[in-house]
């Protein structure tokens, strides 16, 4: 049975994950000049590596819940990726919008695979 303590830890780790995303996305986004939403891409790809790594490590149930679902789950963002893609179409930057979907998917899957590979080696 999952204890109250564990759920409390999930809430705290989840909160920390979203704060970290805000910081990373903000720093990368502010440093980048172009119109491509690189902040969200950086967050999602780095999150995919870490989640792959955690899966590769084959942790116990509670650790996997904390590290995977709580930390990485709140760190990465699907909704922002979608919203920013939609906003690119609003500004009629259709090529950038399609690239945003394709690059995120390709790099994301590759990052998850790489993370698993590294995790399995450890």
């Amino acid at each position, binding site marked *: 049975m999952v204890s109250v303590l564990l759920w409390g830890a999930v809430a705290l780790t989840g909160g920390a994950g979203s704060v970290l995303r805000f910081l990373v996305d903000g720093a990368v986004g502010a440093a980048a000049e172009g*119109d491509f939403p690189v902040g969200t891409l950086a967050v999602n790809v780095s999150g995919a590596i870490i989640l792959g790594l955690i899966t590769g490590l084959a942790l116990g149930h509670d650790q996997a819940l904390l590290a995977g679902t709580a930390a990485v789950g709140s760190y990465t963002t699907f909704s922002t990726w979608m919203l920013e893609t939609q906003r690119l179409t*609003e500004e009629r930057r259709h090529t950038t919008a399609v690239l945003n979907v394709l690059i995120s998917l390709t790099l994301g899957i590759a990052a998850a695979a790489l993370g698993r590979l590294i995790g399995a080696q450890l």
Partner: protein
Amino acid sequence: MSTDCLKLTSYFGERQRCGDAFVADALIELYGQHEIAASILLRGVEGFGLKHHLRTDRSLTLSEDLPLTAIAVDTRPRIEAVLGPTIELNRTGLITLERARLLAGGLPGQQPTELPADLREAAKLTVYLGRQERVGRVPAFVAVCDLMYRRGLDGATALLGVDGTAHGRRERAAFFSRNAEVPMMVIAVGPGTRIGEILPELGTLLPRPLLTLERVRILKRDGRLLAAPDALPAADEDGMALWHKLMVYTSEAVQHEGQPIHRAIVRRLRAAGLSGATTLRGLWGFHGDHPPHGDRLLQLGRHVPVVTIVIDSPDRIAAAFGVIDELTRERGLVTSETIPAMRASSGDRERGGTRLATHHLPGQDPAA
């Protein structure tokens, strides 16, 4: 019918704080306490100031700190009473003071209004409305824009406020509320004679009109160059610095090399080292001969009007106009205004002040 008044405008950042309050909240709170006749807080979509830090809504995370514009209009003594506290609150931003005429309450009967001499060539009319205000079945801002389009004004843009005062009463937007009285504004530009003609009509449309008139020069309309910005001296006869303001009315749908014109303008002016620019996104409006437009229910790209405001010294505005002229080759309405007092501050650097300059263009009535 009209009262000479001052318009106090503050440009700053959304996350900017003063003590433990946000500057935006503190400013409108101040205007509410002083029962300022008309004030409005507008959230911009992109902009930069003296430090050249770009605030933009381009990414969701960066949208946490958008450029804000707070406008307050009232009689001179009442604006002077809030000027000191406004400067205290907005320590790292831009403040401008402009002369305007305020028309509140009843408008003159059915006769077209003869505007004062300095407004006859062209004037900027700002109508303050409530968010849910209606004229018959249509929203008031749509009715007002339609009237302005039918009467052949050069452009009108409806902008949504998030906070402000109307007839001295604070009206702030809240998440769970109809927000019926939260202020919004329609900024229109056109020949003074036509604006004089629609004033009585506005009086019949709106139960409690609240509007301002300002002097303006129309520089470009739909790609056609009508005038260059006035060749202003850097200072007036008493040595008080003069400043210039350009306003560029375009639409999200109008592009320059694959990006909306307003984004290109802000990028290019920032790269050119201008002191500041702010873009506000409208809700509904028109410029030139294009009928009023806004977003549609099913759309891919946006169609709302946008306004970009650029303020700097006359010589740098002349340079900025070169850039804007090139970017608005086919579409866009460009106007210029003289700003008699501007104060920009970035914490360690300061420009200008808040004493009003008195410059009169050649041939202009000094009493106006």
